[in-house]
């Protein structure tokens, strides 16, 4: 175990370990994966794993949650991206290979990938 010898070293360590408890606070960004029977059958679990992996790689702070079926089963896996103060964007038929671009454009650059969007919900 490395010894901490200054406040800066402590703060560096804090940055690393903060991610471990980031799910316990609101990050301002929530990615919601449809995980009803329809979603699971369409491969939502793989999609979610790809999302988690991409967030980890890019060190992006976001909460990932699952929800049940919302009825648009043909478009599963459905992935919603919700950011504070903005309408919730729903992407349809999200396969794992689409995830890097979705995160790159939506979360990093702030541009919605319009061609994949199937709906928008005003934040409630």
């Amino acid at each position: 175990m490395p010894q901490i010898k200054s406040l800066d070293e402590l703060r560096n360590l804090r940055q690393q370990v903060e991610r471990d408890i980031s799910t316990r606070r609101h990050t301002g960004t929530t990615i919601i994966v449809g995980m009803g029977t329809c979603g699971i059958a369409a491969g939502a679990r793989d999609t979610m794993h790809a999302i988690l992996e991409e967030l980890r790689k890019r060190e992006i702070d976001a909460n990932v949650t699952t929800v049940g079926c919302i009825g648009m089963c043909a478009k599963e896996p459905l992935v919603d991206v919700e950011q504070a103060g903005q309408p919730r964007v729903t992407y349809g038929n999200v396969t794992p290979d689409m995830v890097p671009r979705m995160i790159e454009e939506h979360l990093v650059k702030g541009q919605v990938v319009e061609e994949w969007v199937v709906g928008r919900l005003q934040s409630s």
Partner: protein
Amino acid sequence: MTEPIYRANVLVCAGTGCASSGSRSTMAALEAEVQRRGLQNEVRVVETGCRGFCAMGPIVIVYPEGIFYCQVKPEDVEELVEETLVKGRVVSRLVYEVPDTQQAVPLYEQIPFYSKQQRITLRNCGVIDPESIDEYIARGGYEALGKVLQEMTPSQVIDEVKASGLRGRGGAGFLTGLKWQFTAQAAGDIKYVVCNADEGDPGAFMDRSILEGDPHSVIEGMMICGYSVGAHEGYIYCRAEYPLAIKRLHLAIEKAHEYGLMGKDIFGSGFDFELIVKEGAGAFVCGEETALIASVEGRRGEPRPRPPFPANQGLWDRPTNVNNVKSYANVAQIIRNGAEWFSKIGTPKSPGTAIFALTGKVQNTGLIEVPMGITLREIIYDIGGGVPDGKQFKAVQTGGPLGGCLPASGLDLQVDFDSLRAAGAVMGSGGMIVVDEDTCMVEFCKYFLTFATAESCGKCVPCRVGGRRMLELLTRISEGQGTMADIEMIEEIARGMDSDSLCALGQLTPGPVLSALRYFRDEYEAHVREKRCPAGKCEALIAYAIDPDACTGCMLCAKKCPTACISGEKKQPHVIDTAECIKCDTCRQVCKFDAVRVASGPEEIAAAIRAQHH
């Protein structure tokens, strides 16, 4: 980089409260179910400290949503994992329901029990894994220690703590910064820092919850204190009845050593500090600082006259700073956020928060942290959810067995050190017991007095003899043998104990009785003058009888009566033989028609017996 990023954290409370309602088997079941479904790389199950809502334990909180599940049993786990962690749905049957309205409240932050709380001292309790120093650091832990050692002089630290207005959370409310200053200014090159974790009040468990749920916060506070007073060694005096707290303290000290946050040359500043956990045998008097010091030294736990105060002559006659667990737990946050931040919470004279173990006749029992200045009404009704079963509120006892009680007219009193004291109650250790109309205030005081006299160390006469005599007088009153002179005698003994006892144990032992005589004197006088217990609780003054108009002759009471003193034909009103009745209350509890009456006082008893035979 093989460390997975978890999308969900499932926090299971493993404080002593939830552990005793079975949280360990719930936790094991959760881990097994997460494994079985192959979710172990996306869902993390974390053992945390106390969340305070112990009545609802075992408590499980699912993040990021913050879904709050109550009383989760191992058999509920499969459904919880399937619904919430796989499908993202709330299991409504495990969600908290507001008792009166049956309204379900799935989210932690919306539960009324929590909404009026302000968790500062308990900010990490139930939020982090107490066995992980990383999680404490992730919440800003040890930054205050680093700041103090790298950027501040000892006197700057003391000034900051003084400016915050922090008052000792052990009960007396002395200014913490000033206490530190006394120790810092005391002559001597060897000084000590002591943490009083000898929490002994029946029903109070806030210190235990902090030690179990956030041990590093206490350790960091003690080290900051050590630096500012010039001590390099600290002792945590914790009772051996708190095995989990002691285990986690040892673990926390070990981890702090591994990170170089304790030991030699901390933060490269040249400051050395070591901490020792001293287990106490659980004598109540050892919560008194001089008795505590004697016990740490290996001597019998008895107080000695002060002065000299421990700040000048404490552990092994060296200058010693003694503070309570909660006081130390506040220090790091004061340093990190600034004295001004802290002084704006609560009231100007009692800044910060207060922690209470809310118990007795309230819907929501548990551990709560509230800003100073909140009213008792807000605590009891908004957080506690009021008195259950439609009963009337009668009194609230604050400060544990050495505290005092307040009647309904005191409900709008602000909670802080000075207003409680002025009203005859005290902040004390933070016990808060609510009683309803069915409680007899003579019985109630007898309970506390029995505890206090049993815990008297016996060194000084006022406490040893005074408490015993007072208990005898109270017992006489509760048995209908008391006189008005006995009440006066109680008051006279109380004055002597208050002025002449060696320590706070003897001085405050009369507290509950004195406050009860102040606010419920008529109830005492009813026992003496009318031989009547208005609450119908003092056995010698009551009799059980059956109301023939209400009795349906169902025979249930006769069947359950342990002395077979109830007789009567089927479908005919029954009769209790008062001579044989042992007043066990069973008949009244089993009766579905509310036909069993408790009469008190000679006239009422005679009338009830007459009616029964009519």
